[in-house]
């Protein structure tokens, strides 16, 4: 049994590390910035150990562990409390967050070595980790919202870490604002829940997550539940970069690569999936909401994958891949495959973090560029990076027996078996995405590691990171970077077995993870579907083979350039990201809003509202001046006026007597 203190410590240790770095090391001991990394790593390692303990407790007890919440704010009927929930979902998320964060932080000691903002970097990473852990532990919706915004803050700070780069500063702002549009929906859902507080049975709190899931279905009408679920989902769409709020994530690659691995691949962007999973009973009660989740997820999966096909920047390929895979998870939730979605979140965290860290390692070797057109031939000089990147790619493509195979197959099998037209449609969307995923991933792999080295950062006009010039000599990265790659590679290969859909394996019984996550509730597990698995594997292989014939051989039968020519309009459409940035930023924000509405209101404020004020002012002055001119000091004038006045009064008196 785990004590409440221990659970809180999982959150408080990284927070303490943030406080220590931000308030002591950064301002006073910046000469010893390297200690910031050690402090942060020590804290997260301890959190990882506690998380394992927590997971063990939940697995052993077969039930969630409840602790009484603590009062934070009480006003009338409003009671906001803070507490920790420890159920299977939280326990799995804790493990994902702490382990990936640890890997990334170790890796960063190599990757960020010598950066002038080293201490600041670790302060942000610690704050992010604490916020993310706070988010998955939260027992009340307000608490969840607080950490939800705080991870967004850390994302903002870390995307804009190199704030002197205008592109980084712009990307940071964009990420914050676009996700905030989604958060607006989440906020409305929160308000609507509190609005319905008096419908809840006495003793239950409309802002408490478990109370919402337990009681909401019984006391709220189906319309209300739908609206609340849709609001929550809007938050998830923003955070998980789902269509149509996906535009911020590719730009977020401006941040340091380990940050992309941790925040923009493994954990924070998956928070949207977590959020829907957290309120899954609520979503299940509304067919409309479930269908919305499935369709948005399915559309995003294929839509993002198409953009990933044509990017030159290896991190952008991975970013679109992340959007696409998150769409996969949403799709899974939408068709009711709760366990499978979280399972995919789990495996994806490892292989995508691995791929991002691998791309960082490659870039490190190539002098700081991320443009694959200037890479190539790195297989021989960076064997460790190559092998781990290959494992990650195969896992992402979903080949047997790697982790990605099991989780993706579970989703496909669910969608195939689920009833309703929506499930059928998203199944086919998902299947096409399998092909696209395999293709873009191996395109990236071949462009990066095969062929001849094409000069790296020295040849790339846009590269600026580490100041290498002249001839490049790529080299394998130092061990603090390689060791996390190897560990994550092992995870990307092996963690699939915990779901284990085929047969009992002694310590890991059949469907272990799914059963564990459902905690005995009625989320059904699907049987392993050999047909679906075979077809999806064949499709993935086809994608790999196609990528090989175009990018993997020295003299391809079909050259990439020829492909680009043949499909010119489509290629342009994909490469320009379907013109969404132009639509949002150019047309809507700059055109309609800034030059239209805002300019008009600003003009009205100056000319009309303040204009009236100035008019009144002028009227007053002019009247005053006119009156003043009457008093010119000439006695004859005054005498005349008095006489006329007296006569007038007398006349009026006579008339109305």
């Amino acid at each position, binding site marked *: 049994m785990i004590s409440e203190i221990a659970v809180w410590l999982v959150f408080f240790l990284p927070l303490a590390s943030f406080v220590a770095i931000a308030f002591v090391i950064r301002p006073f001991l910046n000469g010893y910035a390297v200690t910031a990394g050690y402090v942060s790593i020590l804290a997260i390692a301890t959190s990882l150990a506690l998380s394992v303990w927590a997971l063990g407790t939940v697995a052993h007890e077969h039930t969630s562990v409840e602790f009484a919440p603590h009062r934070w704010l009480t006003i009338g009927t*409003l009671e906001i409390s803070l507490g920790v929930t420890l159920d299977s979902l939280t326990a799995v998320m804790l493990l994902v967050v702490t382990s990936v964060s640890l890997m990334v932080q170790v890796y960063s000691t190599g990757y960020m070595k010598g950066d002038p903002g080293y201490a600041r970097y670790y302060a942000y990473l610690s704050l992010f980790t604490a916020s993310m852990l706070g988010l998955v532990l939260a027992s009340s919706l*307000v608490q969840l919202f607080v950490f939800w915004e705080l991870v967004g803050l850390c994302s903002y700070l870390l995307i804009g870490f190199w704030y002197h780069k205008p592109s980084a*500063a712009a990307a940071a702002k964009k990420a914050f604002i676009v996700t905030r549009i989604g958060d607006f929906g989440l906020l409305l859902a929160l308000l609507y829940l509190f609005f319905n507080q008096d419908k809840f049975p006495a003793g239950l709190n409309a802002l408490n997550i478990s109370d919402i899931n337990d009681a909401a279905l019984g006391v709220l009408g189906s319309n209300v539940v739908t609206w609340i679920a849709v609001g929550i989902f809007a938050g998830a769409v923003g955070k998980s970069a789902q269509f149509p709020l996906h535009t911020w994530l590719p730009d977020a690659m401006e941040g340091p690569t380990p940050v992309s691995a941790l925040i923009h691949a493994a954990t924070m962007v998956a928070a949207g999936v977590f959020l829907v999973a957290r309120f899954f009973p609520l979503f299940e009660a509304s067919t409309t909401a479930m269908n919305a989740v499935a369709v948005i997820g399915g559309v995003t999966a294929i839509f993002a994958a198409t953009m990933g096909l044509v990017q030159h920047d290896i991190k952008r390929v991975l970013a679109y891949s992340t959007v696409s895979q998150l769409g996969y998870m949403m799709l899974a939730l939408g068709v009711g495959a709760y366990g499978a979605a979280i399972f995919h979140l789990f495996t994806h965290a490892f292989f995508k973090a691995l791929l991002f860290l691998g791309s960082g390692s490659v870039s490190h070797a190539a002098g700081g560029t991320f443009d694959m057109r200037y890479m190539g031939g790195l297989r021989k000089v960076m064997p460790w990076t190559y092998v781990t990147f290959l494992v990650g790619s195969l896992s992402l493509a979903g080949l047997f027996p790697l982790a990605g195979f099991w989780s993706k197959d579970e989703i496909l099998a669910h969608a195939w078996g689920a009833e309703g037209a929506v499930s059928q449609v998203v199944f086919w969307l998902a299947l096409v995405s399998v092909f696209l995923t395999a293709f873009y991933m191996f395109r990236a792999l071949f462009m990066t590691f095969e062929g001849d080295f094409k000069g790296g950062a020295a040849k790339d006009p846009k590269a600026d990171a580490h100041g290498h010039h002249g001839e490049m000599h790529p080299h394998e990265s130092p061990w603090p970077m390689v060791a996390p790659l190897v560990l994550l590679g092992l995870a990307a290969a092996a963690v699939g077995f915990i779901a284990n859909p085929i047969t009992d394996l002694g310590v890991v019984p059949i469907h272990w993870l799914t059963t564990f996550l459902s905690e005995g509730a009625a989320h059904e597990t699907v049987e392993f579907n050999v047909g679906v698995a075979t077809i999806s594997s064949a499709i993935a292989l086809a994608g790999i083979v196609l990528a090989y014939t175009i990018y993997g051989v020295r003299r391809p039968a079909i050259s990439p350039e020829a492909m680009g020519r043949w499909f010119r309009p489509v290629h342009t459409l994909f490469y320009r990201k379907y013109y969404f940035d132009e639509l949002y930023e150019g047309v809507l924000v700059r055109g309609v809003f800034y030059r239209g509405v805002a300019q008009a209101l600003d003009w009205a404020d100056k000319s009309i509202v303040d204009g009236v004020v100035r008019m009144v002012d002028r009227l007053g002055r002019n009247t005053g001046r006119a009156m003043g001119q009457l008093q010119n000091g000439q006695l004859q004038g005054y005498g005349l006026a008095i006489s006329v006045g007296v006569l007038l009064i007398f006349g009026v008196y006579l008339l109305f007597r």
Partner: protein
Amino acid sequence: MPEGFSGLLTTAVFLPLAGALLIALLVKGDKRVRAVAGIIALAELVLSVVIFVNYDRDAAGFQMVDRVTDWVGAPSLKIDYFLGLDGLSAPLVLLTGILGFVAIISSFFSVKQRVREYFVWLLVLQTAVMGVFTALDFIMFFLLWELELVPMFFLISIWGSGRREYSAMKFVIFTFLGSAFMLVGILVLYFSTGTFDMTALPESIEGARLLLPAGAVFGLLFAGFAIKLPVWPLHTWLPDAHTDAPTAVSVMLAGVLLKMGGYGMIRVSATMFPGVMDDLAWLLATAGVVNILYGAVVTMRQTDLKRLVAFSSISHMGFVLLGLSAVAGAASSVGMTGASLQMFTHGTITGLMFLLVGLVYDRAHTRYIPDLGGLASRMPALAVGFLVAGLASLGLPGTSGFVAELLIFLGAFPAWSWITAISATGVVLTAGYILWMIQRTMFGPKLERWETLKDPSPWELVPVAVLVAVILLVGIYPSIVSDVFRAGVDPIAQAIQNVPEVALR
């Protein structure tokens, strides 16, 4: 009827005035003037903390009362000397203490001419504001409300920048206009009920036959508060006055003077006319959403840093109106607590913002946003302050701005669901202009022309640190302030809830 004389509030109100007299008559030399002003400000800060801490939030009601009955005792005119503190005023007294301190300390380095006069006026201003928040006799309230104009006029027109005389005059005329209506309202109430006692008035009004319809009296009084807050379209004095005032005066103006409007709305409008308040809540909600969105959209277009912050204040004061409109719904005390907390928190956040803009202006001699840029590379500590102020302004959790906004939304939603939902889009707009402003001034490449800029000295950072600490403290554990506010507004909210449906039409 609260009686007694503990002297604590009298000291808090008149200590700055005594300091002003001391400086005006006895202290020679700029250095000594600064020292004395600093000591007074510190004493006032300590005093306001003591008062806040000593306020017994469980007992509620008026405490620490200082009352001299029939201070002016003509047969037809009975005016009391009457100061008192309830849960609504206690945090505002604390806010005045904090911002008064910040304003005076930050002026040490930026005010170089006519130093003695400057600090005299600044101290007089503090007396006036402290007085408004604690006066419980309507005439005293009104006198102190008017007193505030005198120092403000001189502070803006002498130490200001830009079109300072125009702005000072505009500010004074606008406020006078409101005060004129307010005075009529006060007198109507006096001749209808025979008392200026603000604690007795709610009951007296209920039983009395007013000389004018209650709605009209409400309107007369509300006009004064609406100009002060300000409510659209009575806001155009604000950007001018804020922009042209010296830094510390902008801090006081945005930090506490605007709050006099919101305070009046709760202390007078809501308390004395619960029925009218209930009936007109829709108007407050509408005014609130207009202020929030109009203010935010116009803020986007501003290119002068100070003007940008000034317009953002209009948007943020809209939240106060929205919070007050919650009186018509089931969660009225949540909304009113939120509105009060928004006043407190906006005081600290915008105070900090103006302070930092002042520090930038002192160094770069420009506030024109397109000319600034890359300042974070030159002045990292200042950039951190800007980031905290900006994030608090856009309502990020962990800062006090979030709690206030959340309470306002939670309170107003049951009463005005659609209006609240539309207002909530303000959180996206706010994020837009704040982050854009930070991006254009703080981030971006190092610019050569700002090569000589250096971070503020530790002494200049003291006021920044004080405000940052308050913002974070209230953000992390809001109950320390919100519980006091709740104790103050709960009875008022209850009274409005208990208004019979057909109270008055």
